[in-house]
């Protein structure tokens, strides 16, 4: 073998060794997936997967008192009233961007309480303190504002055709994209067809069934396409210390199959009901600050499989959890917590 060949061979070996060393160093220094916490089981039927605490590094990027929540096409949208912004994450919790800013001008937000997203990526944000619903395009540019809406709470886009919106006193339906009011159901009160801060809404089958969590009235309602009651679970409390009330405070809702999931900020739990008839399946979770516990869970969204995201106003985070309705049902000592009313 010639001298040059030997030199080349040595160089080759050295380069391979150098490359191997560099790859090893790179892999060692990369944070990788292990940075996420291992799944934690706190409550039967509930597994903590991960929590999202920030949308970047540094104290100014920490999530603070999140409220609104939506999930669409692998993206999680989180409303942060303290900053007047909507934070966007991927399903793993990696930050993707920020929409909106604090202020009183067009496209600016004060209290993004409710969020939803249509198939084009347009983001609908209810800002109760500014009495408006703001629509942004997928790039975060202002598209339209629906103004003078009395205390809007939670928007739900249905088939890109309609926008259902709870306000402090009613459920309204708007056309899309015009945002013209098509109907308005109810008024503020405790009666059967009345509402008092409905903080959650789920719409299925193009509006054939609408589920509303009627906050201060401590009840869950299923409505038909005309807004008429199909069933009700729970009842307005007799007073602040009513021990017989079904909920601490029903808030955000999600649906997966025939199961409704209702966040309860005051109990620090998630209630599960059968969507078809309102039968209570059970209650999962415990209040607390540890991973797997909830601190004022305000909104919940379904992410596929058994996975849900929950905004925790009290713990300054969004928690990703898996909920197994079968395990919740098995673990619930009193499976019939609520009885559907007529």
């Amino acid at each position, binding site marked *: 073998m010639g001298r040059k060949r030997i030199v080349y061979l040595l160089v080759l070996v050295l380069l391979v060794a150098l490359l191997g060393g560099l790859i090893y160093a*790179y892999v060692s220094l990369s944070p990788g997936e292990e*940075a996420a916490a291992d799944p934690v089981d706190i409550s039967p039927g509930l597994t903590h997967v991960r929590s999202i605490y*920030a949308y970047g590094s*540094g104290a100014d990027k920490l999530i603070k008192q999140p409220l609104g929540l939506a999930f669409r096409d692998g993206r999680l949208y989180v409303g942060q009233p303290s900053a007047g912004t909507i934070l966007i994450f991927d399903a793993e919790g990696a930050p993707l961007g920020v929409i909106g800013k604090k202020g009183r001008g067009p496209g600016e937000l004060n209290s993004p309480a409710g969020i939803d997203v249509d198939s084009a990526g347009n983001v609908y944000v209810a800002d109760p303190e500014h009495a408006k619903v703001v629509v942004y395009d997928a790039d975060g540019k202002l598209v339209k504002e629906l103004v003078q809406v009395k205390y809007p709470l939670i928007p739900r886009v249905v088939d890109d055709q309609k926008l259902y919106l709870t306000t402090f006193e009613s459920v309204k339906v708007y056309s899309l994209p015009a945002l013209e009011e098509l109907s308005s159901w109810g008024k503020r009160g405790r009666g059967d067809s009345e509402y008092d801060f409905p903080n959650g809404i789920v719409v299925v089958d193009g509006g054939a069934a609408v589920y509303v969590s009627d906050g201060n009235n401590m009840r869950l309602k299923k409505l038909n396409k005309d807004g008429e009651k199909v069933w009700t679970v729970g009842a307005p409390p007799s007073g602040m210390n009513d021990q017989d009330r079904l909920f601490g405070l029903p808030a955000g809702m999600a649906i997966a199959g025939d199961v409704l999931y209702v966040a309860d900020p005051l109990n620090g739990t998630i209630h599960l009901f059968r969507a078809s008839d309102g039968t209570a399946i059970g209650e999962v979770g415990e209040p607390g600050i540890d991973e797997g516990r909830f601190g004022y869970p305000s909104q919940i969204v379904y992410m596929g499989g058994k996975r849900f995201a929950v905004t925790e106003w009290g713990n300054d985070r969004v928690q990703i959890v898996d909920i197994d309705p079968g395990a919740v049902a098995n673990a619930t000592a009193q499976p019939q917590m609520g009885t559907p009313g007529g």
Partner: protein
Amino acid sequence: MEQEESGGPAAEPDRDGHAEVDTQGVPRWMAVAVIVLIVAIVGVGGLLVFSVFAETDPVPMSAVERDIILYQDKVAKNPQDPQAHGSLAQAFLAAKRYPEALAEADRLIKLEPKNLGGFYLRGLAFRLTGDYDGALKAYDAVLALVPTEAEALYQKSLVMKAKGDVDGARTLLEAAVAASPMASDFRVALGAIFESMGQKDKAVEQYRAALKYVPDYAPALEALSRLGATSG
């Protein structure tokens, strides 16, 4: 190797007809491999440099990491804020970053030499690292400021017990109970000491006393059950 010395046309087979050689007599694959490796090294090296220098602050993945960022920011904004140093020390303790917890506790003590919280933080950090002498000094510092501070007596007794000085722990716990007779955890700790010394009656007496103010105090109920005694 006549061809190597005299040179020859590129892409010409070698003597065995196995590989192509370049004009310098080196197989072409070898030259290509060197070039590919150099490119790969430059690429991976670039990634490495980027990963080291681009993102120095990680995104917090837990409440503890979040709290550390939060309180580090508070300390940075106001280094003279003793409460921020105390909170940061607690966050470091929760993260099991004991040397940093100690450093923050020291800064708190420097800012407020009579703040008992700083000494408790020091005591806990030392205890958790197994430095019992350091922990005892920290609790002694509290007792030097407030001789009847029941919590310091209690914490010190835990250290004494961990060191194997059961009698010393008992003396301290009796003083802690005398200073704070309603503290159920002190009573249970003292009961456990008596139990370990074979003094069952005295242990039961302390467990029952623990239930006087907290009737459903689980550790006391469990201890009484273990000893086959009733709660009252």
